[in-house]
């Protein structure tokens, strides 16, 4: 008999996410990685402002709620104070790629030994569907009612590409959770991002392409299809930077 258990690193609190939202999957993947590595007792998570604002109720490890965009700075403080603990942030696109861009870039360039889970669903969910820094060109949102016009609103920010241009960070990857295959791969990559921290390698960020049926105005299935058809072509999946692997490659 196969029992579908909840990871130990998630609490019993009921998630508040909308039906069809993929935050639940991503929470689970993070918790599974923590369980698999046996680090729940050492883990300290930093929650963002955004849909995942109450992530501190869901992860069973110690948690800190940060101001909007500041999670990497807060995590820096925690990690500097407790270098033997495992510190991660869980942030959305408005939080990480807009208001918190400076904190993101500088934590990355310092190669701060933390793990960053970046959930990109191309919209501000919590406030009701405004244009995000990662909203696609032409995407209709509450604050881009005629579609994102790149002439006035600029282009989406490609975080994985942008950060991988820095010398600092250890590991930058982009994954998706729109189908089983991608979920399995995402799990592997997220776990790697934690393993890097345990090994003291430094800043590891996983961008997870996520969906928002509610604010995209789609059924959950259509939202997953939209991820496949629109999001992933604009935000290609893959490992963008892996300094250790590069070094091994050079050695060979």
């Amino acid at each position: 008999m196969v029992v579908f258990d909840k990871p130990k690193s998630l609490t019993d609190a009921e998630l508040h996410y909308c039906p069809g939202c993929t935050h639940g999957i991503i929470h689970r993947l993070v918790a599974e990685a923590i369980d698999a590595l046996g680090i729940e007792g050492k883990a300290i998570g930093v929650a963002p402002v955004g849909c995942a604002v109450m992530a501190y109720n869901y992860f069973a490890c110690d948690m800190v709620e940060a101001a909007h965009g500041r999670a990497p700075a807060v995590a820096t403080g925690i990690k500097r104070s407790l270098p033997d603990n495992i510190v991660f942030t869980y942030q959305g696109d408005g939080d990480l790629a807009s208001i918190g861009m400076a904190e993101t870039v500088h934590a990355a360039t310092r190669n701060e030994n933390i793990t960053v889970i970046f959930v990109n669903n191309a919209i501000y969910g919590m406030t009701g569907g405004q244009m995000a820094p990662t909203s696609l060109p032409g995407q209709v949102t509450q604050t881009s009612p005629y579609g994102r016009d790149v002439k006035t609103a600029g282009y989406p920010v490609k975080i994985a590409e942008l950060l991988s241009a820095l010398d600092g960070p250890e590991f930058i990857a982009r994954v998706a959770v729109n189908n089983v295959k991608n979920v399995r791969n995402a799990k592997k990559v997220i776990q790697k991002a934690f393993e890097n921290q345990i090994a003291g390698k430094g800043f590891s960020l996983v961008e997870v392409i996520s969906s928002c049926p509610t604010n995209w105005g789609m059924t959950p299935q259509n939202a997953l299809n939209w991820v496949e058809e629109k999001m992933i072509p604009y935000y290609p999946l893959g490992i963008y930077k892996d300094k250790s692997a590069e070094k091994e490659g050079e050695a060979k």
Partner: protein
Amino acid sequence: MANKVLMKGNEAIAEAAIRVGCRHYFGYPITPQTELAAYMAKRMPKIGGTFLQAESEIAAINMVYGVAGTGRRVMTSSSSPGVSLKQEGISYIAGSDLPCLIVNVQRGGPGLGGIQPSQSDYFQATKGGGHGDYHLIVLAPSSVQEMADMTSLAFDLADKYLMPAMLLADGTVGQMMEPVVLPEERPVEFTEKEWAVTGTKTARPHHIVNSLYLVPEELEKKNFARYERYAEVEKNEVRYESFMMEDAEYCVVAFGIAARVSKNAVAAARAEGVKVGLIRPITLWPFPKKALAEAADKVKGFLSVELSMGQMIEDVKLAIECRRPVELCRRAGGMIPSPDEVLEGIKKLQGGRA
């Protein structure tokens, strides 16, 4: 006798902080507090501490928030424009009931203002600064010795009452050198706080450091509980210096460098036979309301001396419930009143309403 060393005020804060167990400093360059960061940059790496030049004041205060959540002593320092940027984080730290030390070596404002000494962040420091209902413990050093002593005191009070403390200094006290006896070296404290995030070791329920309460009843309850603590602070921690007040007919009220200048003026006035004294608030919050109210029973008038357009004067008037005239002697924008200007203010007060 303890060893006296000659130090700048900014450096005395840094050395005192280290001696009382602070091992984490986060900052961003700004005049006139630079020596503090430079001192930390030199010392922290040698004693296993953290010095980090953050990408912004906003990042720095949020790093402070992170360390504070782990229950370790932590501080940041800046000057006025930088402290404005920190207000977001300060509100979160206050809202999460965490201790930390913030140093503001004030300069003239508003805006980019100037770099010369000022006290025009009085409102910001004592009335909140950031959003929401909260207070900081605000200490106003007026000498290099007090820069050291109040650093130690600020950490202790912040820890005791679980709230951020601020040293509200100014460019003069930061830049000047005076002989100082530094606090005794204390062992770095690593006792686990019952609220800190240090990892559950899967042996206890998880701790959450947080200021978000979406249920208004809960948030109100939190605020009431916090203000009960504030009431304790107001009861126990008021500090001020009373100078020549025994027979005073007039009372000068001034803090920090303004109080130093005012002492010269008080001495000069006394030499001319004017019975004047000085009350120097050492804690700006909690404000020495009772001392001023009692002075109002005896004196004919007050003179608030400030390096601002007049901010503390409002608290003086409130403290004495406007029972006596309160006049203002002010310079702003980085200017400092001279003893003569203060003396003139005292004489005006003596001559009735100016």
